[in-house]
């Protein structure tokens, strides 16, 4: 009897092979099961659908890279900013191993559109980002804003997706520009979290929205932005 983990890996491998080779998902669960010589029951015990298989793959990639940096010998000596950087460099270095698949699935997508198959990976990233933010607040690398702290991890996810989006369009030798972007956006993210700049921006946005909603003097403050 195969272990569940082993079976999951086999299914993911098969589905992704098909995707890489044919540029689309296998037609049916039945076809996958026949190729793997397993029963549909075995498949459905592991995954509710073919799409769930792909989601699991992207989550695995995310998880693999997070574990890799968390277990590196230098991790303990890193501050939060260095931890985030170490992860991002590791992720995008590793992404060269499955760049064609990334391009196929996420190339040309808007940063703000989250592909369904990436949701689980994003959840895993958010867990990681929450740890980073928690440590950063404890060690006073960034400002503590109470309940507003929750927006930090989401901001970091947005940064991650921005870099991913850029990386898929990057044509510089050795993808050096992606490295530069990681460096600059991380510095910017921490600069924003360090100061109350973010608060001020939110405060301003609220104020403007209030005017908008009231319909009073709607033009002036918006125009001033």
């Amino acid at each position: 009897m195969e272990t569940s983990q082993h079976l999951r890996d086999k299914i993911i491998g098969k589905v992704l092979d098909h995707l890489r080779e044919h540029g689309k998902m296998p037609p049916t669960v039945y076809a996958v099961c026949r190729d793997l010589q397993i029963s549909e029951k075995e498949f459905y015990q592991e995954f509710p659908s073919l799409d769930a298989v792909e989601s699991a793959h992207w989550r695995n990639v995310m998880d693999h890279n997070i574990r890799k940096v968390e277990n590196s010998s230098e991790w303990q000596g890193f501050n939060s900013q260095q931890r985030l950087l170490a992860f991002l460099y590791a992720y995008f270095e590793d992404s060269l191993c499955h760049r064609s698949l990334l391009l196929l699935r996420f190339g040309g997508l808007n940063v703000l559109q989250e592909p369904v198959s990436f949701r689980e990976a994003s959840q895993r990233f958010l867990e990681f980002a929450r740890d980073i933010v928690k440590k950063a607040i404890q060690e006073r690398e960034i400002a503590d804003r109470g309940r507003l702290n929750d927006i930090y991890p989401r901001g970091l996810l947005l940064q991650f997706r921005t870099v991913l989006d850029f990386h898929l369009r990057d044509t510089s030798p050795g993808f050096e520009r992606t490295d530069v972007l990681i460096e600059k956006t991380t510095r910017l993210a921490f600069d924003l979290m360090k100061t109350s700049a973010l608060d001020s921006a939110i405060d301003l946005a609220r104020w403007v929205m209030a005017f908008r909603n009231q319909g009073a003097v709607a033009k002036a403050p918006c125009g001033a932005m």
Partner: protein
Amino acid sequence: MPEQSSIPTNALSRMAAIAGAGTKVGVNFVRHYAQAAVSGRLNQDALDAANARDIYKTLSELKGGPLKIAQMLSTDQHLLPAAYADVFSQAQYSAPPLSYPLVARTFRREFGREPLEFFDEFSREAVAGASIGQVHKARRGNLCFAVKVQYPGIADSLRSDLAVVKPLALRLFGLREEDVSDYFREVEERLMEETDYEHELERSLELTGQCACLAGVRFPKFFREYSSRRILTSEWIDGVPFDAYCDGNASQKERDRIGQALWDFYDFQIHELKRFHADPHPGNFLVSDGKLVPLDFGCTKQLDPHFHKRHFAFLDERLLEDDASLERALRELRILLPEDGSAQTRNMLDLCRRSIALLARPFHEGEFNFGDPEYLREIRYLGEQSEREGYGPKMLRGARGSAESLYVNRAYFGLYNLLARLRARVMTVSRFSVANGQSNPVAGGVG
């Protein structure tokens, strides 16, 4: 090193930043004329200072190409009014640090290994800024290393930076593109070389090997096995930075010894090897145990022997007393052009005679005291004065001189500056074979 919060990223924002400086320069001109209208007189110094600050600010925000150009211009005091030179020379010290994870990433990309797989210790933070990268200190066993790591994407963006800076530079110095395109090409070539640390490694190994015979100079070893296009590793040298040494309390005798080592180092390279370290900037030298330590061979220049011979023929004092010979020499170097009218020719002869006499003075005297502040002031004054008298860019229209002279002149101006900071007295008689049995520095002055 203070972290810089924002650096313009793409070509567009770079251009916007540079255009920004251009506009500010314009605004300063307006302010300048307004001030003149009120006070009734022009204040060129104030204008220069204000413009230089704006341009410097822009260039230092951009890092990489423009920063290198700023440094290069700042060495060439002859080209720039004093205020520009002062502000540009700060360019050396404005580097925003790379994070350690990016340094580690660069190691993985270049060697497939992390810094700590090579070294027992590796500094998390940079110990010194470099113009297009930063320097980390590392240790393996009981050997210490200086590991220079280049900013990613610098080589890539250099070309577009150069294209953007060029029109600005032309406007700043009132030059015509067709007249100076050779000079720009020369600078671009050298700058592209500087972004290739593999090239720098080869030059370093070559020049330090050839110069090993010089007493008074010591070189770091360079390590091929820890170097690549983006990483250059040399032996760490504990020494006093050149600037600090100059400002410190070294005795006159010690200063003279370091000064002599510096002079001999250049004399040997330029006249014997005909390939030289073309970046005599204080950041590129240390003083250690009474010896001069040149560090950085990123910018080197090879001289064509024919050019060398013609260029240094100007060192012959007799040339200055004989108009016909001087004119012939200037025509050979295309500093004087066939289309120049007789008044123009007379003026050019006069300007060249004055600048050659001044710049070759250390050679003519055999022993020279660079501690005399009057001398550098005279050089600066000559540039400003000739411009005031209308010997500026307008008179120098036409593609004159040779781009080859650019880095020779830069080397000698840099050398004179370093020696002046040292307040050193040196024996300037060339010990190496030069045309006419004499050697000669900055002939021509056009460049």
